[in-house]
């Protein structure tokens, strides 16, 4: 399986069309979501990564780029073990972030 974000003309991200409302709600629930500096620590430490490509970094980026579907597919394998919160240099509460995403975003997303 491959959930990386490939850039091809048809899948170009159009920021004008990205729905920012849900992300704003997520930001209210977990303000630290904007602190991510995309270092990738969470990805490489994640035990679910080898099964579904789960990466909190990609989740945060994907939600801001309108890639909800890919994000939810990745998150299906999250075990909530908290390793990502342990290694995050910015001290983001990733477990609360993940639970908030599960609450705010849904399967019926585009």
């Amino acid at each position: 399986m491959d959930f990386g974000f490939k850039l091809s003309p048809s899948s170009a991200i159009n920021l004008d069309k990205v729905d920012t409302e849900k992300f704003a709600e997520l930001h209210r629930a977990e303000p630290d979501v904007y602190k991510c500096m995309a270092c990738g620590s969470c990805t490489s430490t994640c035990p679910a990564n080898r099964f579904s490509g789960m990466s909190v970094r990609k989740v945060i980026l994907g939600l801001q780029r309108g890639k909800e579907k890919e994000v939810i597919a990745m998150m299906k394998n999250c075990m909530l073990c908290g390793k990502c919160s342990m290694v995050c240099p910015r001290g983001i509460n990733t477990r609360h972030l993940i639970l908030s995403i599960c609450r705010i975003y849904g399967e019926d997303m585009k």
Partner: protein
Amino acid sequence: MRERFLTGYNDFVLPFVCGMLFVLGYCLVGLVRIIMQLPAEDRKKFFISLITPKTLLKNIKDIFLKCLIHVDIWKRNKLLGYMHSSIAFGWFMLIVVGHIEVFLYTSDLGAKALYYPIFFRYFVAETESTMKGALIFFLMDFFLLVVLSGIALAIIKRVRSRLFGMRRTTNPSFLDLIGQYSLWSIFPLRLLAESFTADISGGSFLTKSLNYVFTEFLSNHANMLPAWWAYSCALGIFFVVLPFTRYMHIPTEILLIPFRNAGIKIVNARKGFAKAQVYSCPSCGLCIDACPMGVLKGNIKDTTVYLNRQIRRNNEARIEEISDKCLLCGKCTAICPVGVEGDKLRIAQRSVRKYNFGSDYSNISASEEILRCNKFVNNNNTSVSNPDKERVLYFAGCMTALTPVIRKATESILSKAGTDYEIMDRDGGICCGRPMLMAGRFDQARQLIEKNTEIIMGSGADTLLLSCPICYKIFREHYALPGIRVIHHTEYFDELIRTGRLDVRKGGTRYVFHDPCELGRGCGVYDEPRNVISSAGELVEAAKNRKESICCGGSLGSLTLSFDKRKAMTENALANLTADSPDEIVTACPLCMTTFSRYADRPVTDIAQVLDKCSGPGRN
């Protein structure tokens, strides 16, 4: 003895009778509802336990010791214990002796039985000149004095709680205050009322003496009725507000104890056993001082006593906030005198949260995972190659992957002891499921448990060794691993030393042991790590240890506490550990170790490191 009134009735009994009937009715309805809310299986278990002599006896014993004598509070603080048992036991004895008195002196009561034991002195004049009379009068006055002394202490406690070993107490709600003031006034009013009648109906050292001392006032029988009215009103008010105040714990606790002894667990977040726990909370506030989050003033309202209050009020927003913030260290549960399980109650609240999507681990292949740790099975993957020898499967756990020093030291000890071992998660394993469980997502946790069970059962091991207490707890409680011994590394090391498989040289370092929440309170492992440390050096104790050990603050239990808010808790826990100035802080949990070493002023090590440093292969 003589009946003073032919009718045996006066209007002043009405407030009491109404209040009494109301509270009895309320409790009866509540009792039936709670029992009906239990799952059918639990209900059956409960009824069976009520007729099983062993649990029945235990119920009676527990109710007597806990509800009346308050032994747990005595163990904590003598003065606080006396305050509680004097009011509870004293009042109980007043009721018992009152009934005996009524039984001895009157017959054919009818409806009067409702209030006669309470207002006996008003209706019946009795002589204290016989031995029987004197004794009963004395007992009644004595227990009244006991209760009064308890009430006096309760008033002092409101002002100076520190005298009772409590730094902080609960902020009472409005109705709690009404209940409290009416309770406080019941007994002085009773004393006053009985003193009025002491020269007519008799009395003992307290009532009679008062009657003599205040001759002008108390011997003027014109003033008698208002006092009896006031006494009855105080009782009536207390009973009417009781269901809506913390005093509801008095009847509920009598139900909670048989529930607990029947082995019932929380299933529904708000109903049945959970409800019984919430209503059993006496709002004593012992959990406020115990809570590790309490070092920050802003967290005081997030302790278990306030959770119970908010659940009773159905304040959903606050229930969610309080439940999600908690570190789940379990200390409030450990010290709660009535046995409210603050941690389990919170997990239950988390479990009712609605999520739009869950997890699906069906793409994880357990058989592929087994191939990564299949040392003990034969090539055809069907049988164990060495069935008679010990075969240890070491599950280091997610957190240990971030503290490689623990895994390295453990492996080194295993080699020295000649243990045949295999690592289950060398390149990362599957989470044990405990963090998911703590978030209240039981179905997801169940899926992880199933995957890991398949891997462990397929590995051919006979022992599962863990170095992370978070994993250990769930492996012990939620996994079914027939034929496999689940053991934490502290216990395994202790065993290696005791059986002579490891030779330890004792050094002069002073170690303090931090009891990790999940290992100590969670699994009851306190002595084994101390044995190991004592054989390696000098063991000193923290100011608060064992069941009262303070959470490091790094717990995965909290969902919302952000990293920067935890610092104060860690520093407080460190101050507790270093009270006896040890050279080194030793723990047995990778998470505690990481958290402490961030702020500690001295080395923080895992027990495996300590043992590895000073051990060699043993004689056996």
